C-alpha cells in the first residue's frame, strides 16, 4: 500500500533542484491538464446521457402524437382534444413534429397538421425576435409551412431581416407556397442574395409559378438592374417555360454585351425561342468568347434548319470542345447526320471523328 509514499515524492522533488517557480508551473500545468481531461470526459458523458434521454423522450412523444394524428384522421379524436393532450413544455416539440410531417404531405393531411399546430404557433412567431439568426430562420421556415397565410406579413417582413440568411429562408418559404404576389418583394430584395448560386436563385423565383412570369420578364429586360439579377430572372423564366420569354430575350440579346447576359439570353432562346430569333444567334456563332459561341451553337442547333448546316459544320472544327459538342448535337437535330458521315469519309481528323461519335451520345 505504501510502495511510493508521499514523503518519497517530496524527497524526489526536493532533490530535483527545481526552482520554486518551475515547480509551481509544473503543478499548475498538471492541474490544468487534469481539469481539461476531466471536463472533456464529463462533457462527453453528460452529452451521451442527455441525448439518450432526449431521444427516448422524442420517440415516446412521436409515438403518442402519431397515434393521435391517426385518430384525428379517422375521426375518432377531435382536433381540439388532440391539442389538449400536448403539455406546455411539449408545444415546440409538437410544432416541430407537425412541421416535419406537414412538408411531406399535401392536401387534407397537411391542412389537418396545420390545424393541430395552429394553437402553438404564437410561440414560434415570438422566436422571430430572437437574437440568433438560425432561430429566426427556423421560425420563418416553420411558419411558412404551417401557417403561410396567417403569418404572411411576418414572413414577407423577414425579407428585411438584418441577416441575409434569414431573408433567403423567407424568400424560399414564400416560393414554396407558390406565392406569386411575393415575387415582387423577393426581386426587390434579390441584391441581398448575390453570393448564392444563380441557378438556385432562379429555381427559387420559379417556385412562385407561371403567374410570376410578367414581373420576371420585366426584371430580365430592365437595363437598370445588375446583370446577375437579369441572368437569374432569365433562368427562372426558362424553368417556367414562359412562352413570351423568347421575344423578350431576343430584344435583350440585340443590345446585350457581356458573357453572362448574352449566354443567359442564348440559353433562354434555345429553349423558348423560335426561328424568328435566329439572326442574333447566328451572329454569335463566331463570337470570340467560346462560352458565348457554345451557347449560340446550342441555340442554333435547336432553332435552326438546313440553311444553318454550314455554320454548324464549321462549329465542329471549333477549338473549344464545348462548341464542337453543341455543333455535333445541333447537326444531328437539324438532319445533318448523313452529311456528317460523308464528311467523315473524306477526313480522318480526330476532332471530327470524335464529334461524329459524340453525335450519338450528346444530349
Amino acid at each position, binding site marked *: 500500500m505504501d510502495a511510493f509514499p508521499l514523503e518519497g515524492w517530496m524527497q524526489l522533488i526536493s532533490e530535483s533542484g527545481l526552482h520554486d517557480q518551475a515547480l509551481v508551473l509544473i503543478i499548475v500545468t498538471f492541474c490544468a491538464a487534469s481539469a*481539461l481531461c476531466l471536463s472533456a470526459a464529463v462533457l*462527453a458523458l453528460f452529452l451521451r446521457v442527455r441525448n439518450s434521454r432526449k431521444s427516448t423522450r422524442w420517440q415516446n412523444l412521436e409515438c403518442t402524437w402519431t397515434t393521435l394524428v391517426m385518430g384525428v384522421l379517422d375521426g375518432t379524436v377531435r382536433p381540439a382534444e388532440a391539442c389538449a393532450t400536448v403539455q406546455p413544455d411539449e408545444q415546440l416539440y409538437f410544432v416541430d413534429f407537425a412541421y416535419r410531417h406537414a412538408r411531406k404531405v399535401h392536401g387534407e393531411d397537411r391542412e389537418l397538421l396545420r390545424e393541430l399546430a395552429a394553437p402553438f404557433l404564437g410561440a414560434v412567431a415570438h422566436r422571430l425576435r430572437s437574437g*440568433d439568426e438560425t432561430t429566426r*430562420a*427556423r421560425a420563418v421556415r416553420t411558419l411558412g409551412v404551417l401557417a403561410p397565410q396567417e403569418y404572411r406579413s411576418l414572413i414577407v417582413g423577414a425579407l428585411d431581416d438584418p441577416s441575409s*440568411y434569414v431573408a433567403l429562408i423567407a424568400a424560399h418559404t414564400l416560393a414554396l407556397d407558390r406565392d406569386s404576389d411575393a415575387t415582387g418583394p423577393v426581386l426587390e430584395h434579390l441584391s441581398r442574395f448575390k453570393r448564392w448560386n444563380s441557378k438556385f436563385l432562379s429555381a*427559387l423565383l420559379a*417556385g412562385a409559378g407561371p403567374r410570376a412570369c410578367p414581373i420576371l420578364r420585366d426584371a430580365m429586360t430592365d437595363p437598370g438592374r445588375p446583370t446577375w439579377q437579369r441572368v437569374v430572372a432569365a433562368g427562372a423564366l426558362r424553368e417556367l417555360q414562359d412562352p413570351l420569354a423568347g421575344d423578350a430575350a431576343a430584344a435583350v440579346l440585340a443590345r446585350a454585351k457581356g458573357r453572362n447576359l448574352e449566354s443567359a439570353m442564348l440559353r433562354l432562346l434555345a429553349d423558348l425561342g423560335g426561328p424568328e430569333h435566329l439572326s442574333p444567334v447566328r451572329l454569335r456563332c463566331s463570337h470570340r468568347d467560346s462560352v458565348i459561341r457554345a451557347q449560340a451553337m446550342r441555340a442554333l442547333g435547336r432553332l435552326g434548319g438546313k440553311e444553318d448546316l454550314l455554320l454548324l459544320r464549321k462549329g465542329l472544327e471549333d477549338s473549344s470542345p*464545348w462548341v464542337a459538342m453543341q455543333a455535333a448535337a445541333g447537326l444531328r437535330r437539324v438532319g445533318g447526320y448523313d452529311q456528317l458521315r460523308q464528311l467523315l469519309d473524306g477526313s480522318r481528323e480526330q476532332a471530327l471523328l470524335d464529334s*461524329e461519335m459524340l453525335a450519338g451520345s450528346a444530349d
Partner: protein
Amino acid sequence: MNENPARIIFDVFHAVVLTYFLVQNGAYFITTAIAFWAVRRHTFQRKSLDLEHWLQAAGTPPVTLIAPSYNEEATCVESVRSFVSLQYPEFEILLVNDGSRDRTLATLTDAFTLVPAARFRVANLSTARVRGVYQSLQFKNLWVIDKENGGKSDALNAGLTYCRTPLFCAMDSDTVLERDALIRIARPFMEDRRTVAAGGVIRIANGCEIKSGRVKEVRLKDRFLIRVQVLEYLRAFLAARIGWDALGVNMIISGAFGIFRRSTVIEAGGFDRNTVGEDMELVVRLHRHCMEKSIPYRIVFLPDPVAWTECPESLRTLARQRDRWQRGLAECLVRHIRMLGNPRYGRIGMIAFPYFFFVDLLGPFIEVLGYLSLGLVYCLGVLSPVLVLAFFTLVFLFGLALSTAAVALEELEFRRYLRTSDFVQLFLTAFLENFGYRQLLSVLRLRGMLSYLKGVKAWGDMERKGFRLEEAKRHA
C-alpha cells in the same frame, strides 16, 4: 558560465521539444474548442435551412462522381450499386478502370451491360492512353473509362477530361457514400458561388454492417488497432478539420470524398501525377492558384456529409499507409514551400502552412528524438526524474483530453455509435492509445520522412480486407 556544451545542446533541444509540444497541443485545443461552436452552429443552420428539401426540388448543380478503380474485380459491382443508389437530382458516374490486371472491366461489363460508347473529351489533361469508353445500358448515367495504368491521379485526370458537369466528386471506388452525402456536400456551392471545393467527413467502416452499399448499423470492431483509428479519425475530422475550417485555413480535403468545381481544377492543371498525396496537393494548389490570380474563392469542410471507408487491419498495412501519407505531405509542402510564411497567401501562408510544415512535417523528428533524448538524459542522471515524469504525464493528459473531447464532439450532434459498449470502448481507447500507439505513429511518420528523403515514390498496396467483398460473397 562554464556549462557543459553537451548540456547546452540538450537544453536547447528540450526547449524545442517543449515549444513543439505547446504549439501542437495549443493548436489542437483551439481547433477543438472552435469545433464545438462550429458544429453546433452548423447543425442549427442545417435544421433551419432544411436544405435537403430544397436541393431535391431544384437548383442543384449536376455532379460527376469520378472513381478510379484498380484490380477491384471482387468489389466493383457492389461499389457501383451503391453509387447508382445515391440521392441526387442529376449525377453521372465515371468509373475509371486504371489498367486493372484482373477481370474488373469484364465483371462490370457483365453486371451492368456495358457497351462501347462515344464520349467527347472536354478538357485537355495529359493522361495514360484511354483504351475505350463504355456506357451501361441499365443505368444511363454510368460510364466506365478503360485506360492504361497510370496511378490514381492519372485516373482522376482521365475522368476529368470526360467530365461535363460543373462539379465533380473525387472518391475512392471502395468508399461508401451515405445516400444524402452528395446533397449535403453540394450545399456550399449553392450558398456561395465562390466555393471551389468542399470536403466531408470520412468514417471507418470496419466492423459496421453494410448491406447493398449502405451502412445499416454502425459498430466498433473489437480490435484495438481499428478502434484507435476510429478515434484518430474522430479527432482529425470532427475536431481538427472543423476547427481549421472555421478559421478559414482548410488545407486538406480527403481523396476518399471531396467535391470540386471542375473549371477551377482544370485551370489549375488537374491532379498532380507525381505525388502520392494528390488530394492535399490539389487543395494547396487551388489556394495558390486562386490567390495568385486574385480569384475570389472558398474551400470548405462540412461535418455532415459522410463517407465510409475501410482502415488497415494490420500493422504492416498501417505502416505503409502512414508512410505514404507522410511522403505525400512532404511532397506537397516542399513543392509549395514559397507559401511558407508568405503574407501574399493570407492565412494559409501565415497560419496553416507553417503549422503543417513545423508540426506535421518536422514533428516526427522532434517527437522521436525528444522521446530518445529524454530517456537518455534521464538515464545519465542529467535531468530530474520529476521533470521527465511531469513531462510524460502532461503529454498523456493532453492527449487524453483531446481524444475525450473528440468523443464529446461526436456525442454533441452526430451520435453514430449508439451502443453503450462502443461508447465505453472509445473512452478506454482514448486512455490506452497513449501507451504505445501514439509513439508508434511518430515512428511511422518518421519512417515516411526518411522514405521521402530517399526518394521513394511507390503507392504501396492497401491490402483491404474488403467489406464489399464480404457483401459480394453474401450476394453470391
